[in-house]
């Protein structure tokens, strides 16, 4: 005997349609032991050729499981391959060096300790866990660890690398899902009618069932493949699945095992979707139907004809249809002893299969007991209507055909092939040809409608469940008995029985088991299958890796043009939403002192900036801000607060008037996106007649704030075309000019830090140049950069609230302590009705300045202000040690009865200690009159 014969005792001689390449042997490991196979083998076919019959242990009872459908959806061979869990062994092609292991076994596949679960099977039927471990709660971890043992999935590890994934967008006229003879024909017909077609096939090759058929089928297969190859308007994707159909024919297609990525998500906006998904063979429910060696007829035909694997030696076949008969013929042809064919159409039946690790005998309807090692069932077909359901269809059950058929579909979805009805190959092909042509016509939106011939429903025995109980859901280990007892306990609708027994909820997603479950349930309740209905098919049709769905993470990090400088100068980065900003360069307190005494510079590029143009800008500003905007002269800026319609503070910032009809609005850094949407929302939906054009300019300018008593002196050295004299360019004004040789810069005099300061906005591409020039030229004035932390300290010293920190989701404008800005005499503005109402109440928390009596204690932000044991009457929203005052300072909310200046409040620190703080006169702790910034 040759070496390969020893290694692969079940391998047959060459078969006409085989897809294995005998000249390319591959080696791999199975549960640690070396094995061989050929290129073109699936993992399962290679293992089956080498004599393996048991691939896994079942989920709950740990029963040995073999091949069932030998397709992607085979529940019995989910395997661990290297670091990848839950690999479909009957689909995944073998690669050299794969390390393959069974998943749900301990200590080994052969001797699985938990197989003892089978013995107690009758005590742990459907829903047993709801009926025990009820108390006490402390025992719960015990039951959990019992349940966890049932977890059947594969292994992951925190060290697994994140693979490379990418996405693709496609805009085909027609997508054909499924490339059996009908799908191929429809694709050809559509292409011939002028459509760009994407043909998607789940298997590795085109052709569907023709691939495992006889000579005639193979001849047709080659003919169709040649036609496809010659048709440039068809793009073929094999090993790919249309997993979702969303509104507007937005399709999710997953491509598997590409050379550069393990999966790829293709998003296609198809004008028309043709569903040619064929039919899935369904298992037959009878005792022992999950014993290894009991297989579907299609599995047998795949093994023999595609992979040249002998599925057994002595077989019994149960056949309700011609495909079952063909399987029996295939078996006979390769020399398997077919001991009996039980023909359902003649009233014959299988009663039970017996055996442990593999089937040993069957019992027939007439009492006959036949020894065998292979049982083949061909009990009928399930239409994989998932994509149709996602398109809104509710398929109807047709009893004569023992299957569901499509009913009502939107115009852009057309079914063809086996899913659409029954017929011989010629009838199906005629249907597909017309469907393809009609799909192309609908995609083009013109031409005369193509008549699609009706396909008959066909006849098929209703043969779902036998006279004994058997497995319905192989991945979840749910038997027909479980379903019956669940129905008896009151879980008697499809959805309830599904949830109670978990039938159809496993990795096979109901493809093999849904209709059988419905059949069992309908028998239990005395309703018909049609009345019982199926559960809702939910996307995706086939599982998709998180990696493929995520793709590359396209969430760019935003940096200002000065980022390189910050990095080179030791800035500590701060992640602020999309942006990375310098938090500090050294000691923030030192940075503060430098600003207060000399001059500092901070990068504020992330500040939101909206360029507003048009005659109606003042109306817009009046509508969005709580304060007044009608009389803002050119060259002036004003601070404004925005509220949402519930009166809650939304954002704040300054807006300046740069020209007659030209304004620049600034927003908080974190509010930039929200405010832009807010502005556009109002303009597009509420005030479409207003003439305002909005351009988001946030990244168009590099923004920097030069602050400190020497800032004017510094700017005088680099500014051209702007008179910086305080009379000519006073506080709250804006000027345009040339800074550091760069034209079109503008600056405004405002003072978040409370110092004399100029905010310079320079065209982004010159940002770094302006920044470096200012630092150079200001060297002798003591200029130093400062970071976000120093700015936060200074704004707190100055008592400037930060929206979102010193306000929360319920803070209406009066609560933020900005009464002075709210102009209720304006006609209307966003939030006005709520604020009118708030003005007359006094039951809300108010933002106040707070100073701990012991100035050395900084109460952490979020410390609660309390009364009595635990009544909450406020909280600290901002707190810092003030380098300028040498004491701790805070902003915080207090209940109305505590708002008066001088009130002493109790602050509970997170460590439980309590301290006393005093409400201050105003928010500002430093320079409340604003002498410095106006200077």
């Amino acid at each position, binding site marked *: 005997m040759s070496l390969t014969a020893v290694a692969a005792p079940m391998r047959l001689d060459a078969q006409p349609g085989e897809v294995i390449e005998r000249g390319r042997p591959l080696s791999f490991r199975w549960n640690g032991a070396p094995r061989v196979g050929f290129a073109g083998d699936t993992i399962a076919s290679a293992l089956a050729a080498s004599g393996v019959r048991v691939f896994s242990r079942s989920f709950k009872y740990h029963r040995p499981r073999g091949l069932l459908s030998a397709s992607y959806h085979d529940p019995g061979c989910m395997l661990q391959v290297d670091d990848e869990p*839950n690999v479909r062994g009957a689909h995944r092609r073998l690669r050299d060096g794969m390390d393959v292991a069974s998943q749900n076994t301990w200590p080994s596949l052969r001797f699985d300790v938990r197989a003892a679960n089978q013995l107690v099977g009758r005590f742990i039927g459907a829903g047993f866990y709801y009926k025990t471990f009820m108390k006490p709660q402390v025992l719960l971890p015990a039951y959990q660890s019992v349940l966890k043992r049932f977890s059947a999935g594969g292994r992951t590890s925190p060290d697994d690398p994140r693979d490379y994934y990418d996405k693709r967008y496609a805009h085909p006229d027609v997508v054909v899902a499924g490339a059996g003879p009908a799908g191929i024909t429809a694709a050809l017909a559509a292409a011939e009618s002028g459509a760009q077609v994407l043909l998607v096939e789940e298997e590795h090759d085109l052709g569907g069932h023709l691939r495992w058929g006889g000579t005639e089928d193979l001849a047709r297969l080659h003919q169709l493949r040649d036609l496809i190859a010659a048709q440039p308007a068809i793009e073929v994707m094999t090993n790919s699945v249309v997993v979702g159909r969303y509104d507007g024919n937005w399709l999710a297609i997953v491509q598997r095992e590409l050379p550069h990525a393990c999966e790829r998500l293709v998003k296609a906006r198809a004008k028309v979707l043709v569903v040619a998904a064929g039919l899935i063979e369904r298992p037959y429910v009878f005792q022992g139907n999950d014993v290894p060696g009991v297989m579907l007829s299609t599995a047998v035909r795949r093994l023999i004809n595609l992979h040249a694997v002998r599925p057994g030696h002595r077989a019994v076949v149960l056949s309700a249809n011609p495909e079952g008969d063909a399987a029996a013929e295939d078996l006979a042809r390769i020399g398997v002893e077919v001991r009996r064919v039980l023909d359902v159409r003649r009233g014959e039946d299988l009663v039970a299969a017996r055996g442990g690790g593999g089937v040993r005998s069957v019992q027939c309807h007439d009492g006959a007991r036949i020894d065998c090692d292979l049982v083949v069932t061909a009990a009928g077909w399930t239409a994989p209507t998932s994509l149709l359901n996602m398109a809104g269809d509710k398929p109807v059950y047709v009893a004569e055909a023992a299957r569901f058929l499509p009913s009502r579909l939107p115009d852009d979805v057309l079914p063809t092939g086996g899913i659409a009805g029954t017929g011989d190959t010629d009838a199906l092909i005629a249907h597909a040809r017309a469907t393809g042509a009609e799909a192309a016509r609908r995609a083009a939106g013109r031409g005369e409608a193509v008549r699609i011939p009706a396909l008959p429903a066909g006849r098929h025995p209703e043969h779902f469940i036998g006279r004994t109980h058997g497995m319905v859901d192989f991945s979840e280990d749910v038997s027909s008995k479980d379903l019956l007892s669940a129905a008896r306990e009151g879980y008697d609708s499809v959805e309830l029985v599904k949830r109670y027994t978990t039938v159809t909820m496993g990795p096979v997603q109901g493809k093999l088991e849904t209709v059988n479950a419905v059949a069992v349930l309908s028998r239990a309740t005395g309703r018909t299958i049609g009345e019982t209905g199926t559960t809702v098919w939910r996307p995706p049709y086939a599982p998709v890796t998180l990696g493929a769905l995520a793709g590359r993470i396209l969430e760019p990090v935003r940096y200002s043009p000065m980022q390189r400088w910050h990095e080179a100068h030791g800035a500590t980065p701060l992640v602020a939403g999309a942006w990375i900003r310098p938090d500090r360069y050294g000691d923030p307190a030192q940075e503060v002192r430098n600003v207060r005494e000399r001059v500092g510079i901070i990068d504020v590029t992330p500040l939101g900036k909206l360029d507003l143009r048009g005659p109606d800008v003042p109306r817009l500003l009046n509508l969005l801000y709580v304060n007044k905007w009608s009389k803002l002269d050119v060259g002036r800026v004003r601070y404004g607060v925005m509220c949402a319609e*519930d009166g809650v503070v939304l954002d704040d910032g300054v807006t300046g008037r740069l020209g007659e009809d030209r304004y620049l609005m600034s927003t908080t850094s974190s509010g930039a996106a929200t405010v832009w949407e807010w502005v556009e929302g109002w303009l597009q939906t509420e005030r479409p007649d207003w003439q305002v054009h909005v351009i988001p300019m946030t990244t168009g300018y590099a923004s920097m704030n030069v602050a400190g008593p020497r800032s004017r002196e510094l700017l005088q050295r680099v500014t051209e075309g702007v008179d910086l004299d305080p009379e000519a360019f006073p506080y709250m004004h804006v000027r345009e000019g040339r800074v550091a040789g760069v034209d079109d810069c503008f600056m405004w005099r405002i003072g978040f830090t409370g110092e004399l300061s100029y905010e310079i906005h320079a065209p982004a591409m010159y940002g770094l140049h302006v920044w470096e020039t200012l630092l150079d030229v200001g060297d002798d004035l003591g200029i130093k950069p400062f970071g976000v932390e120093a700015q936060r300290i200074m704004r707190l010293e100055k008592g400037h609230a930060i929206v979102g920190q010193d306000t929360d989701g319920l803070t209406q404008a009066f609560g933020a302590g900005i009464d002075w800005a709210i102009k209720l005499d304006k006609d209307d503005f966003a939030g006005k009705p709520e604020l009118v109402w708030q003005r007359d109440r006094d039951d809300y928390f108010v933002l106040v300045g707070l100073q701990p009596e012991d100035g050395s204690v900084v109460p952490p932000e979020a410390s609660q202000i309390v009364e009595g044991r635990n009544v909450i009457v406020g909280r600290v929203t901002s707190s810092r040690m003030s380098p300028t005052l040498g004491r701790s300072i805070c902003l915080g909310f207090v209940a109305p009865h505590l708002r008066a200046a001088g009130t002493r409040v109790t602050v509970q620190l997170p460590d439980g200690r309590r301290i006393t703080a005093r409400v201050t006169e105003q928010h500002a702790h430093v320079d409340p009159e604003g002498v410095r910034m106006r200077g």
Partner: protein
Amino acid sequence: MGVGGAHDGSRNGHRPTARYSAFALFTRGLRKSPWPRAWRAHDLRPSYDVVIVGGGVHGLATAYYLAANHGITDVAVLDKGYIGSGGSGRNTAIVRSNYLTPEGVRFYDRSVKLYERLSADLNFNVMFSQRGHLTLAHNDSSLRTMRWRAEVNKLEGVDSEVISPEDIKRLVPYMDTSASARYPILGALHHPPGGTIRHDAVVWGYARGADAHGVHIHQGTEVTGIQVARDRVTAVRTTRGDIATPVVVNCTAGWSTLISDMVGVRTPVATFPLQAAVTEPVKPFLDTVVVSGSLHVYVSQTDRGELVFGASVDPFTSYSMRGSLEFIEELAGHVLALMPSLSKVRLLRQWAGLCDMTPDYSPIMGPTPVEGFYLDVGWGTYGFKAGPVSGESMAELIATTKTPEIIATFDLARFADGRLVGEKGAASVGH
């Protein structure tokens, strides 16, 4: 008006239930004797003392506590589909009490306490697994909110604390806590009593408990109208016939405005879809619930090994319960941002449910201007965990006509009086 006096409270009669226990499982297994129905089907009666619209956790819990705590058993629970077909069978089953307002914390904490003994009370294992709950902070502003929540929780006696990235890594070794992550993790609010529950089991357990006390559960019974005479509820119209009743309780969550409209009660509720998804099972590795507000995602792992994911509501109102592609794409991206090594785990199923959102992310509970018409709505994305406490309080309210202290702040009038109970900061992502 109180209920219970008008009719003989025992009209429906108790019935002996088959108690569930390991021993009973064993003996029935031996004798192969089947279990009786967990709840029965009935003909519709022409009248009931109380009609509860909606057979989710809220409706069924209210019925159960009416019967169990107050002896009011002439109660019908109506559902247009099967019980649990609404949010109660679609949620991601997170139970916690680490809310933001003192009122919220107290309320949800009571529910956690009731859940802790619910399996025993109902003789039905609801699998409440207090595995701990982590809310991640990726920026200093969310860290501040976590601290805020921790402080309020502590004052209310609820176990919550802010923990460091190192502690997070210890609890969840798969988490990318490195500083180089796109959204680095700065800390988390850790809430040990939080966890997950088997949502369907809660629904079935309450149904079985209510049934045992004589409550009628009517599935496949849609309410199509409510009759009101002189500002009082008198009858309910259904697809199976009319029912005279002085008390109607609206427990229909995502559909609640349709029911409130039937009596002309306006509520500031808008229905938004909320989506969720689940993966194939992988070996258990995640023992806590992980929520990231900034990334709009949360993750837990079931005992069976599936990863359950959720997010915040869709950005538009709709009654559609279909999932979208964008949702799972963004979700997967964010899950991988947190746990990069899961890229080969496959998503198995996605779905959506309806959420009845209120402006302040707190519920609306209590009487209305229409006598006999009660609201238990506004459960948004967070109402499953409130099932027990809501049922208990609504039952007390209906039986005594006095509003229990614990739900007093959740009245409908708060929107007119400006007394909102703001929970957005604690409930918009981590339900």
